[in-house]
């Protein structure tokens, strides 16, 4: 088990009568970049504050590297935290902000200044030592907050939506830097965000949360390709959802009828217990919708193009089909895509193995 492993077992948290977290089980591997992703109110910030020790769980246990954290105050936990509003000390300059934790620990002055300059260099702020916090831009403040918590070399760094106040350009840039810093230090990063793109971009592992529950844990690819619930499918990326009826279940596939058409979805793509006669939802990503007949087993339909958005390298088409509206995302340089126009009728196909089937319970 590498340094900075967090084990969360059966953790629940109530505020008065409101249950914010309900029986969360989660293991965060040491040295990985993990994102807690979910809409506001899903409990992700509460979970982060429970790990930090600013809150105590109502039930369950949290252990860091095997040591139970119950009753351990935040200052004695082996972790750093970057706050949403950064919480930099306004009365101290950049140097003193980064040196703060080291001063508390009573480190020698020479070691403090050595470490401060090392970490300011790491975040690209060498030479800013004597600037006051009020003189810094949003991105620079961000870097100071990062350097301040990393300078103590914690096993774990908790980040509570630290980039949410920045504009998109700067955000993208800091995401890249954040990831590269995490790779260099091999510190466990636990990052809270509601932005699925940010989560996908940064993480080794994404923990999708909703309504106080963990919905799915997986790599960004797994979460995108094999969402564990309709909620995850909708929350991570664009998705088309179709209602269907299960016609037959056999060893290799599940046969579904969708508005009179029949397709066979491989068993590997089925979530939940599919039983003959039951209803289900079929999810497919916009990029799985193709123009023309597919070679392999596929859902094939006639559709009218109701709206067309050309987005540079890609084209997004909203299509009227007998199954309801479908969104398709295609590469703009395909010859047939270039000829698409609003109002035209086209034949579409969605390969069966690109669907995820959610059986209704």
């Amino acid at each position: 088990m590498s340094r900075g492993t967090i084990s969360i077992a059966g953790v629940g948290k109530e505020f008065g009568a409101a249950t914010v977290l309900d029986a969360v089980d989660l293991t965060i591997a040491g040295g990985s970049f993990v994102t807690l992703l979910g809409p506001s109110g899903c409990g992700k910030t509460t979970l982060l504050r429970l790990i930090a020790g600013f809150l105590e769980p109502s039930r369950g246990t949290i252990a860091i590297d095997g040591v139970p954290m119950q009753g351990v105050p935040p200052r004695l936990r082996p972790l750093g935290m970057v706050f949403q509003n950064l919480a930099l000390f306004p009365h101290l300059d950049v140097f003193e902000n980064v040196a703060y934790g080291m001063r508390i620990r009573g480190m020698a002055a020479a070691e403090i200044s050595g470490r401060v300059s090392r970490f300011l260099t790491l975040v690209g702020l060498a030479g800013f030592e004597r600037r006051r916090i009020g003189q810094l831009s949003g991105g620079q403040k961000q870097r100071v907050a990062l350097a301040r918590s990393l300078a103590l070399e914690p096993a774990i760094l908790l980040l509570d939506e630290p980039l949410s106040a920045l504009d998109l350009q700067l955000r993208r840039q800091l995401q890249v830097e954040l990831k590269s810093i995490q790779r260099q230090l091999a510190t466990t990063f636990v990052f809270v965000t509601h932005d699925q793109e940010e989560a996908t971009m940064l993480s080794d592992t994404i923990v999708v949360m909703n309504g106080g529950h963990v919905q799915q844990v997986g790599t960004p690819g797994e979460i995108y390709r094999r969402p564990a619930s309709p909620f995850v499918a909708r929350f991570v990326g664009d998705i088309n959802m179709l209602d269907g009826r299960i016609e037959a279940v056999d060893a290799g596939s599940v046969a579904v009828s969708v508005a009179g058409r029949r397709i066979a979805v491989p068993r590997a793509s089925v979530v939940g217990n599919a039983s003959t006669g039951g209803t289900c939802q079929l999810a497919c990503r916009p990029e799985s919708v193709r123009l023309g007949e597919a070679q392999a087993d596929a859902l094939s339909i006639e559709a009218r193009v109701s709206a067309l958005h050309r987005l540079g390298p890609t084209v997004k088409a909203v299509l009227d089909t007998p199954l309801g509206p479908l969104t398709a995302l295609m590469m703009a340089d395909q010859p047939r895509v270039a000829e698409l126009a609003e109002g035209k009728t086209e034949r579409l196909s969605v390969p069966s193995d690109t669907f995820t089937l959610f059986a209704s319970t």
Partner: protein
Amino acid sequence: MRGATSTPRSLGWLLLPALLVLALFLGSVALLFFHAFWGKDGFSLIYFRQILDRADYHEVFLRTVSIAAIVSVAAAILAYPIAWLLWRLPRWRNLLLVIVLVPWLVSLVVRTYGWLVILGPKGFLNETLKWAGVIQSPVPLIFNDLGVVIGLTHVLMPFAVISTLSVLLQIDHRLEEASESLGAGGFDTWRRVVLPLSLPGVFTGLSITFLTSMGAIVTPILLGGVRQKMAGTQIYQEVVYNFNMSKASAWAICLLLLSALGLALLRAAEAALVPKADR
């Protein structure tokens, strides 16, 4: 549309009371200077010279400044924990604030007489100490400078509490969490984060209590010694008993200058202690 054009004019009338107050204030100050420099025989600096020459007058000013300095520091030190508690206990804040402010509902004279009952030679404190055998004869707690300091500190402390609290309330609680996550305990967090950030409020309180003590009249008259005057009581005596407006004015101007000097020193101390970017 009609409202839009008539609003500035009606707002102009609202300035009238403020202008009247300003005129009254400036007029009084002008009158003060006139009296101070214009005696029975025309322009004269006799009262200023008197102040500069007489050692007993130096003593009065020295006592005034010393008492004001001690009172403002004592009020700041006593007020800080109260303000901190009010800040820390949001649920109790309103109740505690009422307790801090309730003395203001009682007239200053009544409050000061309260101290006579407690601190007098036959007062509660001396009688209790005598009964307990700690002392044989009463300790002189009032009718001296100590009595004035106690009385003024009591009267002025709520100002210090409120000015400190108002700044504490602006401190983001996340700063404390950040400090804690960086390994600081409660005391370290207070010393390194909360205290420096609350200093501007402490200095505001110091300024208010210092200036008010400099001009105190009622408390020194009731609790002070007969011969241990403060500048305020001296001026009061010149105006009310001696009808010597010129002397009173000269004293008032000297008191004003000393107050301004004290305020300037406080400002300098604040500038040295509190970094510029936070103010």
